[in-house]
């Protein structure tokens, strides 16, 4: 039985790709299995030699054969050249697609010397930094209290109440330019006070 199977396999090997493709198009599903097994190593190694990543290679290999299957089943394949070069060309195009996609959206795999976690960090503050943040915010509020009333009003509306200068001008009854000017002087005065008293407002 095993010998018979071996002979069958040997016979199969002798069948040319073109014949297998034709059989497959005619409905012989096992022909595809022979084709894949015959060429899988070459195609897979070719893809791997370009992308150097087993998972991506697996994906591209799969996409390549999905394309092959669809083209064959749709009857769009014409036996101009050979089967393998055709599949290789599809794989090559898909590898290019992969690199195009990745250059648009670079991916960090964290495998090399560069670690993404050296750039990314947990943005949540720890207890100490929370206290410093509260302190800084209350300091800023106290300095704002020292500003002249008109400047303070514009600054509070803009920064704390998130109003636009148009809204501020409507609310306070002054022109937009006046509101902008008051905001500018408010910031200048804040800087002066901070510099004068050497107040540190960083976390």
């Amino acid at each position, binding site marked *: 039985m095993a010998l018979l199977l071996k002979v069958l396999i040997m016979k199969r090997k002798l069948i040319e790709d073109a014949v297998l493709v034709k059989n497959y198009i005619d409905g012989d599903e096992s022909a595809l299995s022979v084709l*894949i097994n015959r060429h*899988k190593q070459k195609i*897979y*190694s070719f893809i*791997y030699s370009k992308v150097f990543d087993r998972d991506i*290679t697996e994906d591209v*290999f*799969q996409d390549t054969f999905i394309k092959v*299957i669809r083209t064959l089943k749709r009857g769009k394949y014409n036996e101009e050249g050979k089967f393998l070069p055709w599949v290789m060309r599809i794989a090559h195009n898909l590898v290019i697609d992969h690199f195009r996609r990745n250059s648009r959206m670079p991916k960090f795999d964290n495998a090399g010397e560069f670690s993404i976690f050296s750039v990314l960090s947990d943005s949540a503050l720890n207890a100490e930094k929370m206290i410093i943040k509260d302190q800084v915010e209350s300091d800023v509020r106290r300095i704002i209290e020292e500003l002249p009333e008109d400047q303070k009003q514009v600054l509070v509306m803009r920064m704390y109440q998130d109003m636009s200068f148009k809204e501020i001008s409507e609310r306070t009854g002054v022109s937009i330019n006046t509101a902008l000017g008051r905001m500018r002087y408010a910031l200048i005065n804040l800087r002066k006070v901070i510099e004068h008293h050497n107040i540190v407002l960083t976390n």
Partner: protein
Amino acid sequence: MAKIYSNCNPKNIQLNPKKETVDFLLNYSKALRVNCYKNMKFEALLN
């Protein structure tokens, strides 16, 4: 003799896809039907 500092490529990479991938492709092939209607072709995945 000049020293070559470039990384040498691993020679004769002999790699094969996972069995699951090949099985998936064979099953995909079995499930895929292309129906022709006039000049149009419709794909149907029958799982």
